[in-house]
C-alpha cells in the first residue's frame, strides 16, 4: 500500500536525530492552468518568474508588517527546532521551523537587505532560481501552518505567515498547488469544496432526516435555503459527505431541534472551509467569505453559526468582519459569528437540552485540540474558552473523559498532520509521518487510561485521522466528531414516547 515506513511510536515529546533530505522527494502536484486561472493566477510558470516573484515579495513586505519583522528578527536560538510535527515525524532538517523560514529568508536577504545585496555568501543570501521555487513548493507544503512553533519562539515568529507568503508568491508566478487551487475553483463555481450541487445536497440532507427518524422516531429537519430562519449554519461540506463528519452534522440538527431554534443551511454558501487562507491569498479568502454574507442577506437570517471546522473558525472568528462585514443586520445579542460548540454549551448551561450521558458509557474519549481553533481564535468570553468549551460540552454528554499529556494539548497541541492544504493523497507520506506526535500522545492514554476514541472539531482533522490512524494500529472509526457524542446523549422532545403505543403494521 505505502512505499514508506510508518515511524515507530516512542515516548511522548521525544526528539529524533535529524537527517538531510529525508522527505525532499515529497512534493504535491502542481496546479493545472485551469485551476490557476479561475483564481486569477497565471496558468503556468511565467518566463520572468524571478522578477514577478520578487515584486510580489516586495508587495507582501509592504502590506504585512509582521512578514518583514518575522524575516528580520530570527536570532537562530533554536527554540523552534524540535516543535514541528513534520520535523518530529520525518526527521528532515528542512522541516525544522527555522530552516523552513530560511528557505524564504535567504531570498529576502538577497533582494531586500544591504548585506544580502553586496555580500550574499556572508549572510546566507541566495538568488531566486527555479530550483529554489521547487524547494519552496516541496517544503512550504510540508508545513500545515499550525503555528505550534510560534508558541515557543521567543520573538513570536509565525512560520505560518511565511508559508502563506511563499505559497502566494508561488501562485503569482504560476506555480500553485493543485489540491488547494482546484478546490477553491469549485467553491466559486458550485459553492463548496466538494463540488456538491444543490440537488445532491438536498437529496443527502433528506436521507439524513430519514436516518434520524429511523433512529429516534422524531422528525428532525435539516433545512436548506429556508428564508426567514433565525440561524444560518455554515459548516464544512465534508459534514454532508464523509464519516465521522456526518454524525456531527446530525448532532447539530438535534441540538437546533431540541432547543426549538429555527435554522437553515445555504446551497450558495455550503462551505465553511476557506482555502484562500492556506494559499495566503487575501483576495480569494475575501471572495469565499463574501458568499456567506450574500447567503445571510438573501435568507434574512439573524445569526450565523459555524460548524466544526478548524481553519474556518480562524477565518470566521478573526477575519470575517474585515472580509465580509459589517454585520449590522444580525442580532447583536449573539456573537457574530458563533461557534456551534458555544451554542450547544450555552444551551447546556441553561438546562435546555435533555442529556443522557450513559448513552456514551461505551466510549472513553480524549480531545484533540485543532490547531487553528487552539492558537488562532477563541470561544466564549474568557481567554482559553476555546480549550474549556469543547471539553465542557464533551464532559456534559459523556462520563469518561480523559485528557492527553500536557505539552500536546491546548496551545501546545500538535497538528493532525493534514492541515493547511496538505490533506491530499499525493502527500500521504508527510501526512502519516506528521501525525506521529499526536499518535504518541494518543497511544499513552489508550495504554494507561483505556481511551477508546479521539474526538475532533475540525473536518480536516477528522478526515486525516480516519486515513492515518490505521497506519498506527488504530481503527479508522477511532476518530469522532464532538457533536457525535452530543447526538448520542441528547434525548429529543417526544423521543421514546411512541414506543408506548403499538406500532401499526405497514401495508407493503
Amino acid at each position: 500500500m505505502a512505499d514508506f515506513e510508518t515511524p515507530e511510536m516512542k515516548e511522548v515529546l521525544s526528539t529524533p536525530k535529524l537527517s538531510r533530505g529525508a522527505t525532499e522527494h515529497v512534493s504535491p502536484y502542481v496546479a493545472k492552468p485551469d485551476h490557476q486561472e479561475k483564481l486569477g493566477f497565471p496558468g503556468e510558470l511565467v518566463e520572468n518568474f524571478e522578477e514577478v516573484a520578487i515584486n510580489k515579495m516586495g508587495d507582501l513586505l509592504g502590506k504585512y508588517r509582521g512578514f518583514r519583522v518575522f524575516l528580520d528578527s530570527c536570532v537562530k536560538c533554536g527554540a523552534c527546532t524540535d516543535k514541528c510535527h513534520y520535523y518530529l515525524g520525518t526527521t528532515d532538517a528542512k522541516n525544522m521551523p527555522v530552516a523552513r523560514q530560511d528557505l524564504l529568508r535567504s531570498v529576502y536577504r538577497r533582494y531586500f537587505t544591504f548585506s544580502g545585496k553586496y555580500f550574499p555568501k556572508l549572510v546566507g543570501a541566495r538568488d531566486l532560481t527555479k530550483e529554489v521555487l521547487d524547494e519552496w513548493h516541496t517544503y512550504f507544503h510540508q508545513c500545515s501552518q499550525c503555528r505550534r512553533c510560534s508558541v515557543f519562539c521567543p520573538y513570536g515568529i509565525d512560520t505560518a505567515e511565511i508559508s502563506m507568503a511563499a505559497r502566494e508568491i508561488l501562485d503569482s508566478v504560476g506555480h500553485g498547488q493543485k489540491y488547494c487551487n482546484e478546490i477553491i475553483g469549485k467553491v466559486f463555481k458550485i459553492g463548496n469544496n466538494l463540488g456538491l450541487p444543490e440537488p445532491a445536497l438536498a437529496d443527502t440532507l433528506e436521507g439524513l432526516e430519514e436516518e434520524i427518524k429511523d433512529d429516534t422516531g422524531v422528525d428532525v429537519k435539516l433545512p436548506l435555503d429556508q428564508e426567514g430562519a433565525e440561524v444560518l449554519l455554515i459548516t464544512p461540506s465534508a459534514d454532508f459527505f464523509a464519516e465521522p463528519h456526518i454524525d456531527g452534522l446530525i448532532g447539530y440538527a438535534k441540538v437546533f431541534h431540541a432547543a426549538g431554534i429555527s435554522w437553515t443551511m445555504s446551497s450558495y454558501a455550503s462551505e465553511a472551509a476557506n482555502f484562500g487562507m492556506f494559499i495566503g491569498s487575501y483576495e480569494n479568502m475575501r471572495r469565499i467569505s463574501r458568499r456567506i454574507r450574500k447567503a445571510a442577506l438573501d435568507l434574512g437570517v439573524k445569526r450565523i453559526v459555524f460548524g466544526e471546522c478548524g481553519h474556518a473558525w480562524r477565518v470566521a472568528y478573526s477575519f470575517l468582519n474585515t472580509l465580509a462585514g459589517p454585520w449590522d443586520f444580525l442580532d447583536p445579542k449573539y456573537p457574530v459569528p458563533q461557534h456551534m460548540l458555544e451554542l450547544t454549551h450555552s444551551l447546556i448551561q441553561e438546562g435546555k437540552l435533555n442529556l443522557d450521558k450513559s448513552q456514551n458509557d461505551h466510549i472513553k474519549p480524549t480531545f484533540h485540540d485543532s490547531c487553528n481553533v487552539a492558537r488562532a481564535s477563541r470561544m466564549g468570553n474568557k481567554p482559553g474558552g476555546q480549550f474549556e468549551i469543547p471539553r465542557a460540552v464533551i464532559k456534559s454528554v459523556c462520563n469518561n473523559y480523559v485528557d492527553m499529556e500536557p505539552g500536546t494539548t491546548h496551545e501546545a497541541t500538535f497538528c493532525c498532520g493534514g492541515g493547511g492544504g496538505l490533506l491530499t493523497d499525493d502527500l500521504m507520506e508527510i501526512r502519516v509521518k506528521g501525525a506521529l506526535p499526536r499518535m504518541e500522545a494518543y497511544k499513552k492514554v489508550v495504554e494507561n487510561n483505556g481511551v477508546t476514541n479521539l474526538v475532533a472539531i475540525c473536518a480536516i482533522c477528522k478526515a486525516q485521522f480516519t486515513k492515518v490512524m490505521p497506519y498506527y494500529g488504530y481503527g479508522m472509526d477511532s476518530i469522532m466528531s464532538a457533536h457525535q457524542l452530543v447526538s448520542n446523549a441528547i434525548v429529543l422532545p417526544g423521543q421514546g414516547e411512541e414506543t408506548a403505543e403499538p406500532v401499526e403494521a405497514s401495508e407493503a
Partner: protein
Amino acid sequence: MGTITVDGKDYEVDEEGYLVNLNEWVPAMAEIMAKDEDCTLTDAHWEVINFLREYYDEYQIAPAVRVLTKAIGKKLGADKGNSKYLYELFPYGPAKQACKYAGLPKPTGCV
C-alpha cells in the same frame, strides 16, 4: 498525465489514474484499474460501481457515504449497508477507489 490502454485504445488519465473524460468510460477499464491495484472485481464491487455511475448521472457528483451505504444496504442486504463493508471491498476508501474504477472524478475537499 498518463494513459490507460483498454482493448488496444489509449485513454487519458490524470496523475492519480482517474479518467480525464468521463464519457470515455467502458467497463473493461474498471477491470484493468482494479487489477493494477491487486483488486479483483466481484458482483459486489460492480453493484457499487454501477450505483456510483447512476448517481453521478443524476447529480454530477459521487454520493455521500451515507447515501451510498443506504443504497447498498437496500440492494445487498442490511448487513452490508455500512462503511466497514465498503472498505472491505475498496480498501483505499469507497469514495476514492470506487470512483476511480467507475471513471468518475476524485472527490475533493476535507474528505
